């Protein structure tokens, strides 16, 4: 991570994957950790299976723009493989991409008019950006935790490993956002996401 004082995140996925909930939690975690925060997203057509893009920014002093410029995201968190490719230009050269190992096939592919890109393209694109590519089996880990829908929490667990905040801060914000009866399930999902990623040196809690 370039600077421990400010972080820009871009979260992408497909409508219905829980991208927006994950960005809410990410913003709240930043605020709880003492950062100024902003989050931005676009609603509307997103529910109908379109691409979803959301921006989260933390700054120890002040966040101005609610959106991240092209090539300026420290971290790209993608809930879907092809969307990681679509929005790769947001990632800063040398940044980190966390990509859920999940393909949501769009109608253009299922109807046979286009081809879903293979995984080799992910490696090639993020290599070109000199970026670290971390694949996380979100759905598999969520299923193991008890519910496939907790994949977004698995991914939050993964991203938490790369940021220098105490795990407790994450869990406090997360536990306020998930229904009580699913707390244990989400705790397991979060922990499995965290365990799926090796920490970077910058991420050691201060």
């Amino acid at each position, binding site marked *: 991570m370039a600077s421990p004082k400010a972080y820009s995140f871009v979260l992408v996925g497909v*409508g219905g994957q829980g991208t927006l909930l994950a960005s*809410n939690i990410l*913003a*709240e975690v930043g*605020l709880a950790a003492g950062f*100024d*925060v*902003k*989050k*931005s*997203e*676009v*609603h*509307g*057509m*997103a*529910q*109908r*299976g*379109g*691409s979803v893009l959301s921006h989260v920014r933390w700054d120890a002093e002040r966040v*101005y*723009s*609610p*959106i*991240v*410029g*092209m*090539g*300026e995201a420290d971290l790209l968190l993608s809930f879907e493989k*092809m*969307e990681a*490719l*679509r929005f*790769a*230009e947001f990632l800063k*050269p040398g940044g980190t991409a966390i990509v859920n190992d999940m393909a949501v*096939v*769009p*109608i*253009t*592919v*299922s*109807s*046979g*008019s*286009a*081809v*879903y*890109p293979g995984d080799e*393209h992910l490696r*090639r*694109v993020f290599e*070109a*950006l000199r970026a670290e590519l971390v694949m996380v089996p979100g*759905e598999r880990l969520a*299923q193991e935790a008890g*519910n*496939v*829908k907790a994949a977004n929490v698995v991914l939050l667990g993964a991203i938490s490993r790369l940021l220098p905040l105490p795990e407790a801060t994450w869990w406090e914000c997360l536990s306020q956002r998930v229904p009580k009866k699913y707390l244990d399930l989400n705790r397991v999902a979060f922990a499995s996401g965290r365990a799926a990623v090796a920490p970077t040196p910058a991420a050691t809690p201060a």
Partner: protein
Amino acid sequence: MKRVLSGNEAIARGAWEAGVHLAAAYPGTPSTEILEELSRFPHVYCEWSTNEKVAVDVAVGAAYAGRRALAAMKHVGLNVAADSFFYASFTGAEAGLVLVSADDPAMHSSQNEQDNRRFAQFARVPCLEPADSQECKDFTIAAFDLSERFDAPVMLRTTTRTNHSSGPVELGERADRAPRRDKFPRDTAKYVMIPANARKRHPLVEQRARDVAAWAEKSPLNRIEWRDRAVGVITAGVAYQYAREVMPAASVLKLGLVYPIPEQLVRAFVAGVSRLIVLEELDPVIEEQVRMLGIACEGKSIFPLCGELDPSVVRQAAAAAGLAVDHAPVEVAALPKPELPARPPVLCAGCPHRGVFQLLSKKKVPVTGDIGCYTLGLLPPLSAIHTCGCMGAGIGVAHGAARAGIGERMVAVIGDSTFYHTGLPALANVAYNQANVLVVILDNRTTAMTGHQANPGTGITLGHQDTRVIELEPLVRALGIEHVATVDSYDVDGLEKAYKELMSHDQPAVLVARRECALLPEIRKQWVPLEVVEEKCTGCGICFRIGCPAILKSEELDAKSGKPLALIDPDQCTGCEVCSQLCPHDAIPTRDQMRLAEERQPASCSTPVSGGN
């Protein structure tokens, strides 16, 4: 206490803290959440009005009655409400009247791009533009105060980025306000806009604009931030954030009140800087006001007129104009990407509109569309919609084509909520002037596109109170339409039969295609995914042609044709059975057929459908 709030949540909070008594709106992205959020607070009457014009009149009525009132809408909603907006500027009111216009630069969810600060200027209505969530709250409160101070409606103009961005907001308490009147005013000179009265109001309205401008000289809504004097940027709204991010060294005149602007403050700023820049999204509204003062400046000569600004766009344009920027524009590397399949929004699996569009597509009739989820019926493979302009336009457009003598039978499709919004007067026109138009009301029992808001057909209000349902069929018959049929939208044969019957008359006709939106929470619980019987599927591809995202191409090929078989995604399929009815090989059993088959062969029942994949 600080909480992370979206701009819309902050506007609702601000209105509540300002002691608002009534709020009215029609749902429209990016404004919808304002009323949804405000309706959760106590002591405020909130409603979904039937359209934006009605919402403004409702708010005006409350403000005439001495109660603070707010109306919220998306930018194009103000086009609908413009008539009311203009008279309200002439009359003023007895208590604060705030109109929120949520503009949508880049048209994330809109049919056109327009800058509603123009409307404020046009109607001589003061206009505030917040730059973040905290200001959304603070400016909403300021708007009510300003409205009462100058006896003017006040526009709070936001953009998608302020509505749908979130940031920390300091929460306050509600200032409970006693109504400013006990009785409705009988001040006819002020409130009855006959020409004789209106003529006297107009000079007052012009003077009011000058008074607001003079007040704005000292208002904390506007502020100068002196930094380096080489460049001075006049800016407002979210563009202020981009100015600070990209040109951190520049001095800034941040306008909270973007119409009217304070002349002396602008002159003081101009005198203090060497190069004057105006940075604003969409139209040069501030730039033109500055130029009207006889001051030369640069604005749209540097920054784009169309679309949404962002840090990259601003940095690129500023650097090209020789302005000092925080860092050089990032060269976006040409990445070795394959051509990526588009992910267009589609009619959902189980969407009740699919059957209607399948029929209209087959009949190859010209179809005028309208605003809602069903506009997606234009996309291939259905490709069944040929026009879409604005809310309620489709019926009138079909009528016009028919009356002009096009010779083809015109079909108009319109959703239930849109029909109540502005479809109703257009259908009255069809009945009155007798065009042989078939109007299909796609009644999915909700306002789906904006996230399932209630409407006059749902029997429930914004405040979750039961209310009477305005039934479509008696309403349509009362207008004088004789040929009216109602069909379950999932009944493929029934739709075709009704269509043929209605089209057999050379007269106005209405087909109500009714079925709840498959995404409504109570309907989701009834989903039963269907399955393809591989032995029966021939890969003929008929089911692929209805554009259902749950129907996939299998990797299995048909032995004879070599074409891929159909495969149903159990996570997406709702069990609507439209594909079952269309399949010529009975390869997709209906729910009933599945149940029967299971009863007959309990040992070999189909594998349980799991939620995973």
